[in-house]
């Protein structure tokens, strides 16, 4: 497998009303071809901003500041995305890096047929004839599992269901065979059954094309289903990272544990009321982060004098399982006994 994307020490801040907010701090990860990496976290943890940073879609300075490096390893050498002028970045967008997101219902232009939208997506990056692009559109619709693709080209978005529209979005994203697909909660707005179909589809397409996927979600069910590796983010930082199996079965950061306890489970639902644990409190305001570990005010394992003094650094708990917690050893031992 070859590496397609490296993010090193990414920091993203915004300036609003004369105040600076840092919303992503020192995030590093890499993505291999054919691999799926999940970014998990609550709203406001910085996962979507990270993906916008990779797409180069953050507002221009001075409204936002980006530090660190984002490197795209493509066929024609390494490209430093953060140094790239907008005109070249635009050519990469939708071509080498594609993205699908949460709202399939509103992500298609209501006044153009879906055929036109796919054809234009292709022709905005490649010099191909309309007929050729149309043929490719039919092929793509077939690939994403839309029946009668030929007839569907002439339909308008409002004639299709949510699941269908997300399939169209996927078809558009895949039109140019990108190296990287960023999926920002692509199934959140869909029914559970449709959700499973879309995940299946993404998995199958990934196998066929060998693209890397950066999957942003807050749903651990989805993570378990699709991700090879998982990064848990909190207040703009990576707090836990590792192979999905390891992170889910053996979480060492109290935040991950809290998130997993907050997932409703079929076995316990209705049997023991009040069993569903939530994490008290909210994600801290990026302008006023707590001293020490940014999670300590909400943490069940908080130890005074340790967690509220200096920020924890990220440590390797073995086998690439990275944890940002001063007490991960005790937490790990506590589980074993």
């Amino acid at each position, binding site marked *: 497998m070859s590496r397609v994307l490296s993010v090193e020490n990414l920091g993203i801040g915004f300036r609003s009303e004369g105040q600076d907010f840092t919303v992503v701090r020192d995030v590093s990860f890499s993505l291999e071809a054919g691999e799926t990496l999940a970014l998990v976290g609550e709203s406001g943890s910085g996962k979507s901003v990270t993906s916008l940073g990779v*797409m180069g879609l953050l507002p221009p300075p001075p409204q936002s500041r980006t530090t660190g490096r984002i490197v795209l390893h493509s066929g024609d050498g390494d490209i430093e995305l953060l140094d790239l002028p907008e005109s070249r970045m635009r050519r990469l*967008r*939708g071509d080498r890096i594609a*993205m699908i997101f949460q709202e399939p219902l509103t992500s298609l*232009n*209501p006044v153009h047929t879906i055929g036109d939208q796919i054809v234009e997506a292709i022709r905005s990056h490649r010099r191909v004839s309309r007929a050729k692009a149309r043929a490719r559109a039919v092929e793509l619709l077939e690939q994403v599992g839309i029946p009668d693709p030929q007839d569907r080209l002439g339909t308008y978005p409002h004639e299709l269901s949510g699941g269908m529209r997300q399939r169209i979005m996927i078809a*558009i994203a895949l039109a140019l065979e990108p190296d990287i697909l960023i999926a920002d909660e692509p199934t959140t707005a869909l029914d559970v059954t449709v959700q499973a179909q879309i995940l299946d589809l993404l998995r199958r397409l990934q196998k066929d094309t060998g693209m890397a996927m950066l999957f942003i979600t807050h749903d651990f069910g989805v993570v378990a289903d699709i991700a090879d590796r998982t990064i848990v983010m909190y207040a703009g930082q990576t707090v836990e990272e590792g192979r999905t199996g390891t992170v889910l079965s053996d979480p060492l950061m109290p935040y991950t544990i809290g998130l997993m306890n907050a997932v409703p489970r079929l076995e316990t639902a209705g049997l023991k009321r009040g069993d569903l644990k939530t994490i008290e409190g909210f994600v801290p305001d990026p302008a006023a982060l707590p001293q020490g570990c940014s999670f300590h005010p909400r943490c069940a394992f908080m130890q005074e004098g340790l967690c509220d003094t200096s920020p924890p650094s990220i440590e390797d708990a073995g086998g690439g399982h990275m944890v940002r917690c001063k007490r991960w050893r005790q937490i790990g031992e506590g589980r074993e006994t």
Partner: protein
Amino acid sequence: MLTNTSPPAIAEKDRRWITSRPVRRFVRHRLAITGLVMISLIALLCVVGPWVLPHGMLDIHIRDRFSPPGTETYLLGTDEMGRDLAARLFMAGRVSLMVGIAAMVLSTFLGAVIGLVAGYFGKVIGTVLMRFTDAVLCFPQIFLLLVLAAFLEPNALMITIIIALTSWMEIARIVSAEIRSLRERDFITAARISGASHTWIMFRELLPNTIGPIIVAATLTVARAILIEAYVSFLGYGIQPPLPSWGNMLNNAQQFLDTAPWLAIVPGVAITLAVTSFNFIGDGLRDALDARSDLQ
């Protein structure tokens, strides 16, 4: 062989167009249809009228001057020089309607582009453009027109341009407001994500979504442009005789108001009919195209 033959694709498309919701809503709007019929009739008369009438608009029949409507071959009577009023009315209609429609096209284009750019870019560009729009809007239109008309040679083309230059602001504001809300929609984010340029997003993604409000405003602009042309010509700064327009026919008529009232009534009714018809059509289109009911 009568069963199971699928209709050809074009027929399918046609049927969809006819039964589409906006079209049905428009057809059901009685006033709008009345307006449409009236305008079509007026336009038809203006096109065909001067050919079929027995007298030309410039033929002077001094002995028949001030004939009331219905006299012999003079359908609508004659004026102070014995020229056939019907012939002049229809010829004037050509001029007035043409000026109105051309001014609408020009001002709609101008307003739409300014509104689009202002709404899309926002910030400094948007603020400057919209404040400029507000500033132009602050001038009393009629004085601006008269000042411009006094300096420029008053022919039909100039009048059209002047009217367009003083009536694009409303469309600019409508479009810019519309664009400001549309540009935050997900499909615009999606377009940016797939690498679309600013020009592409503005003209291909955003503009087609504002076509409803633009059509409505444009229709109402025709009505207003016709009225404005009438004012200006009435005041003597517009279309110059002997070329007739509805406005300068009124101007001519005022001195004979007590002796030959039809000279004022006939072009007056024509203006009223045309303007109200366009307004009705505009209202009907507004209801039919109400973007919110169709844009999901």
